[in-house]
């Protein structure tokens, strides 16, 4: 037994990698569904968007790179589809370098999905065509996000005289009479980096618009103070947050699917922590005994 714990303490990390990948593969090919219980901070975002009347503009900042694809892309899918199904307009901006590619990819996929008639939360939504400039306006990317956020507070046309596709904002139907943050119902920042800090301090603080966040799992705890202070009205944290949102909009997608892999992987990590600690205590006890002799 002592020998077992001794070997456990010296376990090569490649065995850990192998064990984790085997668990992930088994979980991925197995057919089961993880029960999801939405948290209050996710529900508030859903309820806010759901309560908006048709025609309102929701601004979505796609501030993440492909690194955060697994956690944040499902949030984009779920929120944008919810907005379009409810005939809300979406104003999209992207303040990270690879964000426009992510937004472009998401817009194409969601546009395809909208073409089909689907039922969400018991309500049938007829398939329809999504029109650029009418249903959404994609502003694109500009460097120096702090300056862009401040500039948009005065007029969207200052940092973005044209949209991503080169069309002047003034000739886009959706942007008629839309000047700055005062004309959008809320801003939802989906971010995998410190751009969120700037949306809070330069955006929400200065221009006082309702702000919600979609963050990677590791970032989430860092932004709870803003939820407590009311500067942020909702937070979706990591893949679980995305899965909770998918559950609320009744649109199971990549996040619900990803949870089937993430949950067993987390359990494996917890088990490794517990086993490592048992080995540590046994090892310490043995050393104390040996010193006592």
């Amino acid at each position, binding site marked *: 037994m002592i020998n077992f714990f001794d070997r456990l303490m010296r376990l090569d990390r490649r065995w850990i*990698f192998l064990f984790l990948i085997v668990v992930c593969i088994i979980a991925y090919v197995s057919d089961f569904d993880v029960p999801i219980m939405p948290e209050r901070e996710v529900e508030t975002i859903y309820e806010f968007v759901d309560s908006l009347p048709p025609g309102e503009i929701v601004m979505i900042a796609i501030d993440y790179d492909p*690194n955060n694809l697994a956690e944040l892309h499902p949030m984009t899918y779920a929120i944008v589809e919810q907005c379009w199904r409810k005939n809300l307009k979406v104003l999209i901006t992207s303040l990270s370098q690879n964000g426009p590619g992510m937004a472009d990819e998401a817009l194409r996929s969601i546009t395809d999905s909208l073409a089909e008639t689907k039922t969400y939360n018991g309500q049938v939504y007829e398939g329809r065509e999504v029109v650029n400039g009418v249903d959404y306006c994609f502003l694109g990317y500009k460097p120096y996000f702090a300056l862009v956020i401040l500039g948009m507070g005065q007029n969207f046309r200052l940092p973005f005289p044209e949209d991503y*596709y080169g069309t002047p904002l003034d000739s886009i139907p959706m942007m008629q009479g839309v000047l700055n943050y005062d004309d959008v119902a809320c801003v939802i920042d989906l971010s995998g980096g410190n751009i969120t800090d700037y949306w809070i301090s330069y955006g929400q603080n200065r221009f006082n618009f309702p702000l919600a966040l979609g963050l990677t799992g590791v970032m989430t705890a860092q932004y*709870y103070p803003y939820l407590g202070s009311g500067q942020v009205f909702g937070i979706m944290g990591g893949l679980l947050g995305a899965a909770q949102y998918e559950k609320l909009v009744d649109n199971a997608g990549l996040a619900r699917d990803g949870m089937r892999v993430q949950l067993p992987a987390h359990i494996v990590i*917890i088990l*490794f922590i517990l086993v*490592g600690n048992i080995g540590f205590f046994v090892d310490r006890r043995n050393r104390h005994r040996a010193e006592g002799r």
Partner: protein
Amino acid sequence: MKRQVPLVLVLLFGLFMIFQYFVPHESSEWVYEFLLDWIYIIGIFALALGIWSLYVVSVDKVKTRKHDWGYSYVTLAGLFGMILFGFTARHGDEWGWYLIFVACVLLTVIMSVQAMAARINKGLPLGLAGLFLLGAVLIAVFDDTWSFYFYTQEGLQSTMFRAFFDYIMMPILATIFSLLAFFIASAAYRAFRARNLLASLLLIAALIVMMRFFPYFGENVGEFIARVSSWLMNVPNLAAQRAIIIGVGLGIVATALKVILGIERGYMGKG
């Protein structure tokens, strides 16, 4: 004089930026917007400098045969390839000489690196670079199956640009990031130990917060864990994060004042 002018400029612009934040007057806004434009202009020069720097570093790696020097070619081919695909697009489904044009440009870059890195016999790579460049220019002039687009809808919808982004860039970056899970598992196993009281508290708190996501506990246990984890996030975590944020905020103000008043001069290259 060389040191005083930058100090005066920083003082003036620093004070103005503080002033304009609290004065939303039309003229103040105009100056502010004018200064924002300057930041973009300076940024564009920085971008060009960055590309040039990457090119020079790559040449140096090839020249001195540093570890993994061969990847420098891949880096430069990726950089210039993506720039090309971003600025060019085909008109229809025909390929024409498009891919040969791209190959010619990339070979020009590679041959120019080869020429700069070579200690002797620079003539051959230089001649080849010139030849490939000539080929690229001729194709650009005479091939009408594709065109250059600078920041227009056609350029941004380029199939090659999208394909490279969707099928190469996205999977590569997502894969690299997902490797983190394996390192976290290994690190957690080795380092997350209850060595003393504080480490034990951290370990217990982490386990509770992680377990709140576990949906298979019974109703009572699940609710208890959810309540405890919610308390952990909203009380101790919130307090610690607020302290950090306030500390960082005060630090930023102090550093900004030191820069504006000329006490901190690191940005000029010397302390």
